[in-house]
């Protein structure tokens, strides 16, 4: 016979105002198996907990039901109290009398009856509870940072400075990301490269950071603290150890007319190249799709001129196996590409460009050395129109969300243009100006008031070319929807920020959820913003949603601190609420029939098939096996199992049925 203690809490008047708490305790004392039943004003208080501890010892309780608030609130509190009194914490259960009863019902007899039922069913459950023990898993104290933009750089530096090892993987030949392309940054107009490049160098030189550029994640296995990753290091065709980064190969390369990715197609680069002069690492790569040797079989000019003989045409992709404890996803975003806007003529007219292209035009390191020259004929544009929300907040384009950064960078662009072309006209078409942030609105006001940028509230319907001018047709909704036509020399589209190429496949590789626009999803939008729903994988920067540099950096530091906290322990403790496949003595070994239907059903890839062998090593049965490190206790396999061979510890079928039968 069980020896169960029932403890009914008044929660001040939260419960006792509508539920007759002493009555509940009295009724429960008559339930078979209950040996002790009391009520108290605040069970979670120190005296309340002491009451429970004393009762466990005095009455030799083998089960405890605390009838109080939601287990989300105080289950850890009461389980800890039970453990302190020597009772296995998983023999303590809570009946939720507050959220499920007193708060939602009026004071009447039925309310107390319901409260009694809620407690009674937990008593029946506790009778079936088994002692459970938390699961310990070891931690590999190395973090993987995917993406070498400002988010990845900040996260990597923070983790490395906390004393842990970091492996950084970047898809492009250099780290730096979009921030390295920017000319100036809002709201202070300080030079983007000047503040970024010292950080890039720090990453390269940090003793705790191993940098793999021109590399991608191939696959991921394992679980929090114990991931195994494969990294594909793409062939640079350059021996990184020998190369000194002198740049002679790029200078002499005969194939120079390849559109530069770094300059957003506004400039050219050779087939063997470093994306930009401050690249980290400053070792070139050969673009095999453009290189004459790879296309036609002869040339080899770079090999001839290389003073250290570092060119390796026969280099192959390498696969690196690395053990990892935690992952920070910082894969960034991209701007929406051209044919989204047939009506704006992007791709058709050379002088209709997008925001990142304008950054390159304005940048001192850009194709025009920072001089304001339009792409078509290199003339200085006298009138420039900036179109905000090009794609963003446009349900018809399939992007109902706000890209967040465009209002600010458009104000910055207009301002930079006015600073370079004093007599020029800058127009901004906008829907709303969203400038929430420290010094942000002041910045926009400065563009309007001091620099004379003309803001027109309304959208642009179409852009077409007439007599060498771009005719921008729009509406001014503050002047009664009056149509506006501006003859512009250049148009800059603040095109929407969208998820990066390959975001969806990456999310599927990592089992991280993502939203309909392929941005990675956080575990909780408010309280767990840098965690994913896969334990041990964290988020930083614009791979989660469009965001600006300050926000990205603070989120990256947040993710890094989560990683550091994880690495501060040598072992991880996990709740034992996981699924288990039953194991019986021979001849059955397990009631599992080995149908393996649960394997694909598991959202966490925690189930694999295992051979059960007899003492001669002969396979007698094939059964499912659940990896306790990976299982999140969702119960999908339990519901699916046709022979009821799987049970969820702490919520077994027997326990649930006992609860139901009590009603």
């Amino acid at each position, binding site marked *: 016979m069980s020896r169960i203690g029932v403890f009914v809490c008044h929660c001040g008047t939260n419960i006792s105002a509508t539920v007759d708490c002493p009555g509940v305790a009295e009724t429960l004392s008559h339930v078979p198996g209950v040996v002790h039943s009391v009520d108290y004003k605040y069970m979670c208080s120190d005296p309340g907990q002491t009451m429970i501890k004393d009762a466990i010892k005095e009455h030799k309780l083998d089960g405890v039901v605390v009838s109080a608030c939601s287990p989300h609130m105080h289950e850890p509190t009461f389980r800890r109290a039970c453990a302190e009194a020597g009772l296995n914490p998983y023999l303590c259960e809570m009946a939720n009398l507050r959220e499920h009863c007193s708060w939602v019902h009026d004071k009447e007899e039925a309310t107390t009856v319901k409260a009694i039922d809620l407690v009674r069913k937990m008593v029946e459950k506790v009778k079936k509870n088994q002692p459970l023990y938390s699961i310990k898993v070891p931690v590999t104290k190395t973090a993987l940072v995917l993406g070498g933009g400002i988010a990845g750089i900040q996260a990597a530096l923070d983790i490395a400075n906390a004393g842990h090892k970091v492996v950084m993987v970047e898809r492009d030949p250099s780290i730096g990301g979009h921030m390295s392309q920017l000319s100036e940054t809002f709201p202070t107009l300080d030079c983007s490269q000047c503040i970024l490049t010292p950080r890039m160098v720090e990453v390269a030189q940090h003793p705790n950071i191993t940098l793999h550029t021109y590399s991608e994640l191939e696959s991921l296995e394992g679980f929090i603290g114990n991931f195994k990753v494969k990294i594909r290091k793409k062939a640079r065709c350059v021996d990184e150890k020998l190369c000194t980064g002198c740049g002679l190969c790029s200078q002499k390369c005969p194939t120079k007319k390849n*559109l530069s*990715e770094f300059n957003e*197609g*506004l400039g050219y680069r050779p087939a063997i190249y470093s994306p930009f002069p401050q690249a980290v690492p400053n070792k070139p790569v050969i673009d095999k799709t453009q290189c004459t040797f790879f296309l036609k079989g002869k040339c080899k000019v770079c090999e001839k001129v290389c003073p250290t003989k570092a060119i390796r045409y026969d280099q192959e992709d390498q696969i690196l196996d690395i053990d990892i404890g935690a992952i920070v996803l910082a894969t960034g975003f991209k701007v929406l*590409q*051209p*044919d*989204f*806007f*047939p*009506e704006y003529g*992007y*791709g*058709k*007219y*050379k002088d*209709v*460009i997008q925001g990142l*292209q304008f950054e390159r035009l304005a940048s001192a390191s850009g194709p025009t050395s920072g001089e304001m020259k339009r*792409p*078509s004929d290199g003339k200085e544009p006298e009138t420039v129109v900036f179109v905000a929300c090009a794609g963003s907040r446009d349900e*018809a*384009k*399939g*992007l109902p969300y706000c890209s967040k950064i465009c209002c600010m960078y458009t104000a910055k662009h207009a301002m930079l243009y006015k600073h370079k072309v004093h007599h020029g006209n800058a127009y901004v078409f906008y829907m709303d100006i969203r400038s929430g942030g420290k010094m942000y609105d002041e910045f926009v006001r400065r563009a309007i008031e001091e620099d004379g940028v003309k803001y027109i509230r309304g959208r642009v319907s*179409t852009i*077409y*070319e*007439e007599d060498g001018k771009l005719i921008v047709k729009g509406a001014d909704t503050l002047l009664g929807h009056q149509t506006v036509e501006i003859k512009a020399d250049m148009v800059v589209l603040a095109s929407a920020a969208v998820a990066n190429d390959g975001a969806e496949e990456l999310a599927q590789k990592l089992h991280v959820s993502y939203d309909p626009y392929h941005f990675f999803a956080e575990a909780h939008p408010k309280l767990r913003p840098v965690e994913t729903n896969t334990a041990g994988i964290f988020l930083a920067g614009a791979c989660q949603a469009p965001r600006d540099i300050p926000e990205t950096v603070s989120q990256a530091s947040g993710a890094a601190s989560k990683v550091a906290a994880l690495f501060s322990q040598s072992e991880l403790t996990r709740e034992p609420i996981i699924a288990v496949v039953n194991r019986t003595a021979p001849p059955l070994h397990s009631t599992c029939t080995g149908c393996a239907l649960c394997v694909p059903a598991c959202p966490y890839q925690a189930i694999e098939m295992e051979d059960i062998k007899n003492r001669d090593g002969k396979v007698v049965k094939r059964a499912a096996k659940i990896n306790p490190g990976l299982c999140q206790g969702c119960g999908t396999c339990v519901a699916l199992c046709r022979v009821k061979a799987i049970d969820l510890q702490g919520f077994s079928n027997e326990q649930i049925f006992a609860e139901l039968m009590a009603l």
Partner: protein
Amino acid sequence: MTKIAYYPGCSLLGSSREYDESLRAIAGPMGFELLQVPDWNCCGASSAHSLNHELSLALPARILALSETLGVDEMLVPCAACYSRLVTAHHDLAESAETRDRIIEIIGMPYQGTVKPLNILEFLERHADSFKDKVSKPFEKDVACYYGCLLVRPPKITKFDRPEDPRTMDNLVELTGATALDWDFKVECCGASHSISKTDLVGKLSSKIVGNAVKKGAQAIVVACPMCHSNLDMRRTFINRAAGRNYTIPVIYITQAIGLAMGLSEKALGFPRHIVKVKFPEKAKVKAEVKPAVAAAAAAPAPAAQSEQTEEA
């Protein structure tokens, strides 16, 4: 012969008889038998849907219901305004059971929604193979394809082509041997039914369309809508007055362009009915710059469909 329901609407029996004639002229060689919807009524364009919502659905619903008696599952609707009304009714009645029940009650006849209205471009695109190999006299002209507003909008309902930069007609005329010019006003407003109440306004709006086509070196404007045609053709006096020019560029239907390529006579295609004489000007000597600019977006991938359709599809 493949059978397909055919709803001519009022325009094709009145102001745009040449559209009806040219369509019938090419339908036979293409292997189609057009079954006119029996006892058809007004589609309700313009007037009904600005006055009474239920009427604007009931009128086209009756047509759809009647077409279901023909035992076909597609109905060809050459007029863009009729198409807009029919496809809207087809869409709305499929979306809401409540609306469907109410409209069935009003029209007093069974309605299944089994017949899908097709506009002329959808129809020709689907059956391009059946006229492609019948091109005997390639229509080697530089043309501007003008879509107007209703064929591609609203995208949620029509789910057809790219609303701001459609391409279907361009692809179709290229099959006849013509060159489709890249021009700016494919879907610009012609003024539509203001033609009657505010003819000056139509002249002004349409003059921009005609002017741009001429400037780009077009030898003809190709249309697929009776309203577009009457505004660009019949209102040419107003257009020329508004522009202060004397534009003579002919405006022809896509069906006429195909008919010419099939070697049919101008009379059979109804050319004598046009107000602006169908006389194609010489090819422009120095062709306007029509190639898409390369530099900025040369690295861009081939154009994909706009998201409106993909999202709905």
